């Protein structure tokens, strides 16, 4: 019966394409919006990943820190206390804060400043495009991310030696790096810790985070627990800190809700289009189903036919929708683009499940209609 079901479906080109387009639209909207949401959430924690890549496994911070930009300064003593925890191999300073850059033309630009441990440069940018990381040891030296460079000097080819001011101190770009896009879109400037303190107004406590590494062979979570119990600081892994940051934005902003609405709308509109068209297709063929019933086709066979039809249009619609969403993602992640997009496998599976639900909802209505149709309907003129 399967070939009959497929021929019935594909024989009605208009409705066949209509159902596929409805499902493709839903699939596209769900996958694309969910991926943009994931991309935005990744941006909120991008700097943690960048520092993590060439940094330490443990982030120690004030207990009240809620996310990566919520800086609650620590004292130098906190650094020494972390270093004193059994199981900690080493621990270094990290400054993170916002400062104002002043350009040669007099313009100002808010900038994210990262001060790395002078001796080890732990947390340095993972991908250098121009210059050398070790030039950070020069006086007034900073490394800027490429996107930030383009933001400050649009249209200019990146070059080292460019100068600007922070807190009335001259900063000279000695390197251009690739960094994860930030949620605030501000330029990211890396420098040494002691140099960073020159670029910000003086405060009694300036240490933002302590980056630490457990001794080889020790469980990182166990070392975190020891740091927390002995220093009263909060100690988490980079991955945990990423989730803490993302969960903050999910809880405290309307971003998930707004994207959730769009995803839900995609689901509802897709379901409405697909279910209605599929149902109309079934109604249009109800006499044929009645005839099949009269000729001895059982309800299970007919339900199987409808399920097969629904599965076919769902698979094609899903493939089209995911394909277009991926194509959008390809464009969104071009270096020239500032769009957020990240499609993890969970989005792929989630969209597939949503399309599966649309398919089931669509076919259930049709199946119910076919189940109750009397074969005697074929004798009605």
């Amino acid at each position, binding site marked *: *019966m399967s*070939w*009959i079901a497929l*021929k*019935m479906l*594909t*024989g*009605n080109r208009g409705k066949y394409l209509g159902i596929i387009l409805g499902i493709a639209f839903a699939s596209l909207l769900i996958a694309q919006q969910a991926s943009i949401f994931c991309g935005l959430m990744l941006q909120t924690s991008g700097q943690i990943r960048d520092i993590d890549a060439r940094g330490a496994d443990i982030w120690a911070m004030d207990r009240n820190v809620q996310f990566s930009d919520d800086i609650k300064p620590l004292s130098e003593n906190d650094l020494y206390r972390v270093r004193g925890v059994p199981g900690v191999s080493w621990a270094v300073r990290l400054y993170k804060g916002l400062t104002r850059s002043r350009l040669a033309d007099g313009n100002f630009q808010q900038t994210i400043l990262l001060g790395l441990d002078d001796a080890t440069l732990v947390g340095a940018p993972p991908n250098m495009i121009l210059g050398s990381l070790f030039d950070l040891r020069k006086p007034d030296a900073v490394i800027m991310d490429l996107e930030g460079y383009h933001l400050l000097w649009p249209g200019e080819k990146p070059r080292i030696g460019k100068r600007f001011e922070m807190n009335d101190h001259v900063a000279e770009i000695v390197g251009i790096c690739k960094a994860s896009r930030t949620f605030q879109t501000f330029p990211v400037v890396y420098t040494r810790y002691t140099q960073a303190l020159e670029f910000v107004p003086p405060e009694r406590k300036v240490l933002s985070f302590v980056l630490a590494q457990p001794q080889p062979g020790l469980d990182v979570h166990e070392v975190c627990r020891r740091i927390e119990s002995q220093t009263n600081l909060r100690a988490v892994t980079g991955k945990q800190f990423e989730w803490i940051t993302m969960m903050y934005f999910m809880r405290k902003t309307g971003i998930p809700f707004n994207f959730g609405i769009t995803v839900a709308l995609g689901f509802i509109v897709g379901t409405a289009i697909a279910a209605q068209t599929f149902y109309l297709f079934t109604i249009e063929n109800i*006499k*044929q189903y*009645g*005839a*099949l*019933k*009269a*000729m*001895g*086709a*059982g309800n299970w*066979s007919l339900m199987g036919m409808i399920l097969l039809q629904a599965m076919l249009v769902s698979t094609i619609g899903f493939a089209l929708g995911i394909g277009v969403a991926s194509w959008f993602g390809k464009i969104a992640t071009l270096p020239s683009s500032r769009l957020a997009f990240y499609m993890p496998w969970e989005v792929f599976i989630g969209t597939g499940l949503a399309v599966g639900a649309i398919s089931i909802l669509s076919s259930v209505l049709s199946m119910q209609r076919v189940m109750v149709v*009397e*074969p*005697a309907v*074929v*004798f009605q*003129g």
Partner: protein
Amino acid sequence: MNGNNSQPSIVCRNVVKTYGTGNAEVHALRGVNLDVYPGEITMLVGPSGCGKTTLLSVVAGILRPTSGSVSAIDTDLTKLSGWRRTAFRRRNVGFVFQQFNLLPALTAAENAAVPLVIQGYSKRAAVARASELLTEMGMGDRLRNLPGQLSGGQQQRVAIARALVHGPQLLVCDEPTSALDHKTGHAILELLRTIAIEGDRAVMIVTHDNRIFEFADTLARMDDGRILSIGREKRGDRALIA
């Protein structure tokens, strides 16, 4: 009573069929008695709403009578569950519908193959058997045509091939000539008569078309849910003998 020596394929006794309840109750059949013989054409005639189609549906195992007994091909249909009646129809009944009810996306051969596919035959085997049958019926050059590419008469031939392909003992036809011109209608009835005689099948036809009454071996006139008269036509002289 019937002048036929063979056993009837269908025996209806005091068949009552009522739709709805209370004020909405409709008595479609009010105690119908009818015998249908193999190798013959039995026609049910009468005004619209007289119960012809309901009787056809009951005899074909589509509807269950409210009371009375219906025996078809040695099977008491009133005792069968819905699932068994479906299986009964699958094996023993061929249907020819007024509007042909061919699947528009399937070719003539594929349409005619549908009952075999329902029985579980592979597509290849079913279409091969259906193609043979259609060729025997003079439709060999139309096997790959879609219903929309066929004339009304050709579509009805495909529908008849579909009704015969699985070798049923009972053929039920609902207004088989109403969508056809006079000449084509006669040709279709000639075909049905041949099918009845050569296959020793019971053919039951519901019709309004008095131009085809001459093909009936038995003519049952109905009104208001009852059979008013049963006439037996003798082939050749067409004289009413009962």
